[in-house]
């Protein structure tokens, strides 16, 4: 089976690099083709990379708290750019402060995100979710 391609990156003015590096490594180990854009990635860069690499999903990280502002409009831009329906996943510390995660998840889903993950989501969870979402059978 062909490898599924995942675009990863940390959106906005966010420079939290550790999780991004480790997540990219873990995804590669788990058999994905990873296009890691690193930190401080704009919405446009996510979209360009996804188009260019025919990505199967976009994993948006946001740690620093401005995720809500930074992620707003990404789904619409994807739609316009011809990426209708592409899975958009968001994770990290998406909002400022310790907030009720259900609320946060709801707000991000309203913004068009397919799935939203709370702080501290382990790479194993992320990988399992991607396997499921992209219909990959785990060896």
């Amino acid at each position, binding site marked *: 089976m062909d490898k599924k391609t995942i675009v990863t990156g940390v959106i906005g003015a966010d420079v939290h*690099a550790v999780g991004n590096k480790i997540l990219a490594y873990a995804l590669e180990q788990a058999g994905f083709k990873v296009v890691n854009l690193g930190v401080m990635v704009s919405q446009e860069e996510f979209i360009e990379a996804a188009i260019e690499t025919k990505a199967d999903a976009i994993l948006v990280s946001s740690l620093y708290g401005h995720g809500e502002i930074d992620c707003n409009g990404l789904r619409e831009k994807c739609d316009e750019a011809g990426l209708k329906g592409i899975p958009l996943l968001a994770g990290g510390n998406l909002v400022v402060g310790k907030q009720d995660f259900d609320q946060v998840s709801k707000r991000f889903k309203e913004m068009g995100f397919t799935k939203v993950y709370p702080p501290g989501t382990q790479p194993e969870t992320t990988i399992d979710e991607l396997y499921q979402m992209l219909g990959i059978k785990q060896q």
Partner: protein
Amino acid sequence: MEIKNKKLTDHQFFAERKEILEHWPTGKGVDFAESVEYQKSIPQEKRFGTKLAKAKEENITLIQPRAGVALYQEHIKLLQYLENEGEADLLPTTVDSYTRLNRYTEAQTGIDKSKESGRSMLNGFPIVNYGVEICRTVTSALKSPVQVRHGTPDARLLTEISIAGGFTSYEGGGISYNIPYSKNHSLEKTISHWQYADRLIGMYEEAGVSINREPFGPLTGTLVPPSISNSVAVIEAILAATQGVKDITVGYGQCGNLIQDVAAIRSLNILTREYLDKFGFNDVRITTVFHQWMGGFPQDESKSFGVISWGAAAAVLAKATKVIVKTPHEAMGVPTKEANAAGLRATKQLTSMLKDQSFTDIPAVIAEANIIMQEMKCILDKVEELGKGDYAIGTIAAFQAGIIDIPFAPSRYNAGKVMPARDNTGAVRFLEVANLPFTPDLLKFHREKLEERARYEKRPVSFQMVIDDVYAIGKGFLVGRPNRVNS
């Protein structure tokens, strides 16, 4: 761009200044002479440097939180709460991430949205957007000295407004606020920007106003070996002193092994003094700051209290002049004021309870400090060599050559080849030394330390150790053992 480690001339400085103050409308509110007078009117007990000097003399450790919210009235309330309910000795004003990247328009959106929504939509306090007067309203509303903490590669306007705004201490540096906080800023540029900031503070100093300066010690906060962060601290101290700064607090982020942590502060103290003296900066005052663990925290609040308290204990036993305090919300997000005060009070209990105990001179610490100092000298002397005696030029060349290389940094100007991992007692060692100019003895030392761990864990020395170590504290451990060993 050509930069040198030389004091900026008045000509250079003022030409640059004219432009800088235009970057955002609030720049017009800055008047140097008036600000000197304003700063002089601040009573001694509210001055950062004075309080640090007193603590150093008394051999005690002060406590300081991080804190900043979008709305200034809320920010004042927050800081008042932290000094009253949190018993903070020193206060911060943590700046939001848009301001750090000079995106003042987005910061304004953040302020506006925060007003609308009633919750802070910024992860810090947007100093530039508020300007001098509001900063003075903030700093004068508090009993304790207040420092600006940020992470801004180009902080020139921020510095102008901050010092004019009555802050008496200022964090950052051309390396430490670039490499961990930025992707695309060249070191030439950020060192130059920070020469401006340091020169400005040098001018205040010359005008009779001493502002405390603090290079950001922990860098990426994640498994940074002490010799790397200490070397950066020494370099930034030299660069700052060159511009006329006279009061410097060098810092270190806790790694978790007590001996190594105490040794890191010991070596930082000794070599900062040695190198500053070497360049004739004998009159620069040095104090130290110890950051409680800066990497990933446990989700659980009680476990976080454990991590916070261990950081507090290590800081005091190392006799750091101050400790920067985490909160039980660390893994979740910017803390509430209650959580912030809780972290402070746990820390205060230990800074006062343990103040009469010291580990700085025990043999194990001295031995570890000697290793760190050997490594620092390898790095620093190579920087000096590459720069032909000029630490600005040398630093840029050193990053290019991977002579300085900061683990996990996002900057493209960082080689990113060095790989740290913990040894069998949790001390941070080098799994991959890459281009660090270490002696064969040092290489051997690190190799053996990791092989000892590998034997214990019955697995080869490998990148998997690094990954396991990154997650370890969050999962309740220090050394990231394979499951079969830790369970």
